[in-house]
């Protein structure tokens, strides 16, 4: 069994950010990621990020990823790739199935002083007749195929969901050379930013609000999709069926936090629809109800890359405070700045649901004596 000071589980934006923040102040950090390359969802985000220009707005996600990895290297973060955290046990013991360069696999048990869970979220499925046919996939899967693997998953796409993921991935599918036949949205209005919708409308992609999918048809893979209008009770309106000739149906219907490890360590969770489902509670330091276990990024509530980066910094800062690498005063100053940026990112009509949900989490966490 190893002993490590700080173990970060998950090398996406929040995990990398937490690792860098802690390491640069002197903590010894091990970051574990199940993939062959760290960076999480960042390497799929080829578009320029929104947010404050003082903090990486206007920079493409892929470039932020490269920069973060470089910072991790410079600050001496130890990274185990191709390694999966398979269990988290009381008290702060993590079991990792580690795969070495020569393919050798070993189960390592690590006793950590502090653990950051940055496991992210997974895509929701929308079930309809024929949804299991090859050609039906998550929008994230399509995004991985085009932006990371550089292969088109299909040529004629139906996108289900008009939130930012649905709109952005539709745009990226166009950039990769696919035709997006339509975006459908069950709600009566488009979910994502107007500017994202405007980009794809300019490219001739229709967005059908108050529409749902009835069926995916095909012998061995998707050949057609049947969509229809829905009424204000979300029920299909008979007679409005339309058949679209598509070979791929991508589902962008939200994400839910991957909370298994947090639950294994008895972190208290709450069911919060605005943040994706079951969300482990955390305090203003991003510490869970289980002392020494921190939660950052989508696992602490599905938001976006910008908030993930900030929450990672927050946890990294809090951890170095409790490990006495920085003074309480310095930590309070840094944390205050980060909270200001987080609040700014959660302002406006698109963020206020999340802002409220996050403040409820802090309340609930306090009430359960975090």
């Amino acid at each position: 069994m190893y002993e490590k000071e700080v173990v970060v589980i998950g090398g996406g934006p929040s995990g990398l950010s937490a690792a860098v923040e802690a390491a640069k102040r002197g903590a010894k950090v091990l970051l574990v990621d199940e993939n062959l390359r760290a960076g999480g969802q960042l390497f799929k985000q080829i578009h320029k990020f929104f947010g404050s220009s003082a903090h990486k707005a206007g920079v493409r996600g892929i470039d932020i990823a490269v920069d973060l990895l470089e910072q991790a290297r410079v600050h001496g973060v130890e990274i185990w790739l191709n390694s999966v955290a398979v269990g988290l046990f009381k008290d702060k013991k993590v079991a990792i199935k580690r795969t070495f360069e020569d393919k050798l696999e070993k189960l390592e048990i690590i006793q950590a002083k502090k653990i950051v869970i940055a496991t992210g979220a997974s895509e929701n499925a929308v079930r309809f007749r024929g949804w299991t046919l090859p050609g039906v996939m998550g929008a994230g899967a399509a995004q991985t195929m085009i932006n990371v693997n550089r292969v088109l998953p299909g040529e004629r796409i139906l996108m289900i969901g008009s939130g930012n993921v649905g709109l952005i991935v539709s745009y990226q599918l166009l950039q990769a050379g696919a035709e997006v036949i339509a975006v459908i949205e069950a709600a009566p209005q488009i979910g994502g930013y107007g500017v994202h919708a405007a980009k794809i409308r300019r490219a001739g992609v229709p967005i059908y609000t108050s529409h749902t999918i009835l069926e995916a048809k095909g012998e061995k893979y998707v050949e057609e999709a049947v969509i229809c209008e829905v009424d204000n009770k979300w029920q299909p309106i008979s007679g409005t069926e339309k058949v679209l000739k598509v070979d791929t149906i991508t589902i962008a219907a939200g994400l839910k936090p991957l909370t298994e490890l947090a639950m294994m360590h008895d972190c208290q969770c709450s069911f919060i629809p605005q943040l994706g489902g079951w969300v482990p509670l955390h305090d203003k330091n991003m510490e869970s109800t289980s002392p020494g276990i921190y939660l950052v990024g989508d696992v602490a509530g599905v938001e976006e890359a910008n908030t993930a980066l900030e929450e990672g910094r927050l946890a990294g800062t809090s951890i170095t405070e409790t490990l006495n690498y920085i003074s309480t005063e310095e930590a309070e100053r840094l944390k205050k700045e980060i909270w200001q940026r987080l609040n700014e990112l959660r302002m406006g009509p698109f963020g206020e649901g999340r802002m409220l949900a996050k403040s409820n989490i802090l309340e609930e966490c306090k009430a359960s004596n975090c």
Partner: protein
Amino acid sequence: MRVNDHIILGKDKRDEIVEIKVDGETIQAKKDEMIIAALMANGIKINRYTVKNNRPRGIFCGIGQCTDCVMVVNGKPNVRTCVTPVEEGMVIETQHGVERSKK
């Protein structure tokens, strides 16, 4: 279809090719790419058939979470093709149920 050139990603500079066998047929793949990418680039959309009703399945989540893309690789079943890189001479077979090979 491969995305050989892209306004943001630039030209695909990977030019090392490896050969793999898929259900007996040799196909070309780019060195170190994920198996699913090589299959998709060659128009192969079906990875496996289900146990009970023999229904086709293909990529769903793309990041190793859902197991819809698993195939028999070098004789080993249930290998997630979306997170496993190709290797020269790799033998890949469409998986039927949870067994090793076609019934």
